[in-house]
């Protein structure tokens, strides 16, 4: 092990992180993986610490994963969701922060529909801030768990060919993954209809294709992105059916894939749209492993941030 020492107070995105920092989180997560396999699934590492989960946007698996990770580290937790908080009464994010500060919370996990909301909070708060998804910007813990899954299944990230398929434009999961994977030396391809690929994304060091076959052919990992049905009134493609015809991962297209390909999906899965049911249940899919590993990765992030001092870092906000 290297002598690397974690110093960051916040986890706002993978864009800001150095390669060694990402590797350190993944390495630390290994130690947390087995805690959930014990009869007593709990360690006292965050005893006496308080974590606030602020979810201003709907979420099931990320919210539950964070909550469980916090509980398994023995932290005390409070849950605030958009619809039940004073935000609906018009309270600003800054005032929400002030109240959190007054309650002496140590770590704040935030999901927000505005890109940059966690960064703003980090500037106002002494507590550590973890970005659980902000607008179209980043979803760092999802990317970290995707990378952890790749490490577990493929043994490495360096040189790995990873293809993202679907709605790249609206995907903070893809963005965080691209930041992280390219830093660790993976070869990333993004694939989808032109309208769902952000302009100039090549500048991040990824290959772009609109042909599914090209993305599937020599990929070690296919990471599928959910078609965000709630956005389809904006007509990014003619119809769901047409999208499925061109970009669905099914048994037929997988005949062109490598025999050891691994299929990932951040969930929730739209069966029959971006992926067929038989592939979800099939031998290539590691979607539920991702959920399991997500817990270990989030425990690692919470643990690392709990050990840093308030004054150690503010410039990343």
């Amino acid at each position, binding site marked *: 092990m290297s002598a690397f*020492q974690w110093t960051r107070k916040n986890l706002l995105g993978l864009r800001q992180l150095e390669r060694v920092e990402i590797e350190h989180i993944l390495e*630390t997560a290994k*130690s947390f993986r*087995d805690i959930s396999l*014990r009869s007593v699934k709990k*360690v*006292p*590492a965050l005893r006496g610490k308080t974590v606030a989960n602020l979810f201003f946007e709907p979420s099931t698996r990320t919210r539950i994963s964070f909550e469980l990770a916090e509980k398994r*580290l023995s932290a005390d937790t409070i849950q605030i969701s958009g619809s039940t908080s004073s935000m609906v009464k018009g309270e600003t994010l800054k005032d929400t922060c002030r109240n959190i500060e007054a309650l002496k919370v140590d770590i704040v996990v935030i999901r927000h529909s505005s890109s940059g909301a966690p960064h703003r909070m980090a500037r106002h708060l002494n507590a550590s801030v973890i970005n659980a998804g902000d607008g179209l910007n980043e979803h760092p813990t999802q990317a970290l768990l995707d990378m952890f899954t790749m490490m577990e299944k493929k043994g490495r990230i360096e040189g790995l060919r990873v293809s993202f398929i679907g709605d790249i434009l609206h995907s903070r999961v893809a963005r965080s993954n691209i930041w992280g994977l390219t830093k660790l030396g993976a070869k990333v391809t993004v694939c989808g209809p032109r309208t769902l690929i952000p302009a100039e994304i090549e500048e991040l060091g990824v290959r772009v294709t609109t042909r599914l076959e090209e993305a599937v052919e020599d990929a070690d990992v296919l990471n599928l992105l959910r078609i965000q049905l709630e956005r389809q009134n904006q007509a990014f493609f003619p119809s769901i059916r047409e999208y499925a015809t061109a970009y669905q991962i099914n048994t037929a297209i997988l005949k062109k894939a490598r025999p050891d390909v691994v299929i990932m999906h951040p969930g929730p899965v739209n069966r029959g749209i971006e992926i067929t049911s038989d592939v979800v249940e099939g031998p290539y899919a590691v979607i539920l492993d991702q959920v399991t590993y997500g817990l270990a990765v989030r425990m690692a992030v919470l643990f690392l941030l*709990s050990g840093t001092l308030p004054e150690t870092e503010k410039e990343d906000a």
Partner: protein
Amino acid sequence: MTPDKKILTSDEMKRALTRIAHEILERNLGTENLVLVGIRTRGVPLAQRIQKEIQKIEGREVPLGLLDITLYRDDLGEIGPLPRVGETKLPFDPTGKIIVLTDDVLYTGRTIRAALDAMIDFGRPKAIQLAVLIDRGHRELPIKADYVGKNIPTSKKEQVMVHLIESDAADEVIVRDRSGR
């Protein structure tokens, strides 16, 4: 400043571990239900050596586990660098077993307190015993070792350094006076 004192040579260390192996077997009437658990990091090679000694005497290999106590430390929230978390590997169910925890130096007892809490989270052992190469005194908790390689009266200003061939240049134990440094 006084020079470093070597208080255990390689041969003495070997004899101490052989004796500890005999004492463990004598006290537990053999190897039935017996398992060794080394506390990371230097307790692990010591546990491996005791395992080999027991194998020589009884012709049986007792199971060996590794325990990382970082997440159970009582000083995690304190100021200072965050320690690295290592992997814990217990290739057995501790319930009903006689566990011999192994560490290099017994000092304040806080590491052992953490190790006891960690062990009990894995199951309900029949008994937990403690083997250490060096007991240097200055306990802050009511903890006592069952098997001791060597008792060394020390001052708190002194540092006890256990060097093992697995991770260092030689097998030896050295006491260094830090008061003048």
